[in-house]
């Protein structure tokens, strides 16, 4: 059982990596696009929506991570009583 858990953890780390939000965002986008295709949407709008949507999601996620890193780097200095 321990090996099964370790095996699962290894693949989770390998595919999902440090930031689970990236994989979750891609999965969500694919589910929405798949629903649109199943409902009969044509290829061009789906392609444009997936491309632009992924780029916007990626940019927003990276900016959010960057802001978090900047704040955590600045926090100790601002709290330093000296």
């Amino acid at each position, binding site marked *: 059982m321990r090996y099964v858990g370790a095996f699962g953890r290894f693949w989770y780390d*390998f*595919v*999902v*990596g*440090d*930031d689970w939000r*990236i*994989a979750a965002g*891609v*999965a969500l986008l*694919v589910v929405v*696009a*798949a*629903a649109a*295709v*199943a409902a*009969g949407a044509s*290829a*061009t709008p*789906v*392609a444009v929506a*997936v*491309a*632009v949507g*992924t*780029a*916007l999601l*990626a*940019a927003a*996620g*990276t*900016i959010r*991570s*960057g*802001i978090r*890193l*900047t*704040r955590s*780097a*600045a926090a100790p*200095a*601002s709290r330093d009583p000296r």
Partner: protein
Amino acid sequence: MPGAGHIGLVVSTFLASAVEFVEALTIVLAMGLTRGWRSALWGVGLAVAALAAITAVAGYALVQWFPKTSLQLVVGVLLLIFGLQWLQKAILRSAGLKSLHDEDQVFAEEQSAARTAAPGERYGLDWYAFVVSFKGVFLEGLEVIFIAITFGLSAGSIPLAAAAAAGAAAVVLAAGVAAHRPLAKVPENTLKFSVGLLLATYGTFWVVEGLGVFAPDGKSLEWPGGGWALPVLLVLWMATSWATVRVLRRVATRTVAVS
């Protein structure tokens, strides 16, 4: 766009493989120079054998079990996730918010850990050097193999992808043997940025084609312009990354000014 898939395949696989092999070389060099080459090279050999077996089994299984459209979707999703992970780190490093990967520092840390690790022998090998070398090559190589298999399958040429990966291995190995030290001067972040852009580009392309599996006829969706959508997607990812780096640099400057 004839040949675009193959050019992208060779460039992406070569660059991604080179980056991973540089990192693996640092670990193996640290073990070989600190604890001895015999055990380190046994670790490398076993890892290469395991990776070759995985490549053969996974390549065969994917071709046999997955219909083309489903394969495009699975490959596209995974490449997109990998591409966005590589891009996010490269963007944060370019904006100065994350420290650059320093092979000299990694090498020093690995050597320090190797010197302090307790001596232990199994099967006639220095077990620490063997295990660390095996893990380093296996884990870095697994990502290379994944990229080579998925790109190879989607572009219809696994041998070409394998040749690109082997070419990168040969170049890195030759450089490592010549320098006899970690390849710290390789511009890793630039390489990772380029690979991230290519993975995201091909990932987006194949995700959309693979979404055809949900269409009533189950056939791959066609991009407007066919293969010419690839350079357009590459420009989209480059523009998005460039804009994100600029925004983050501004955020960092403002935060420093406020604090």
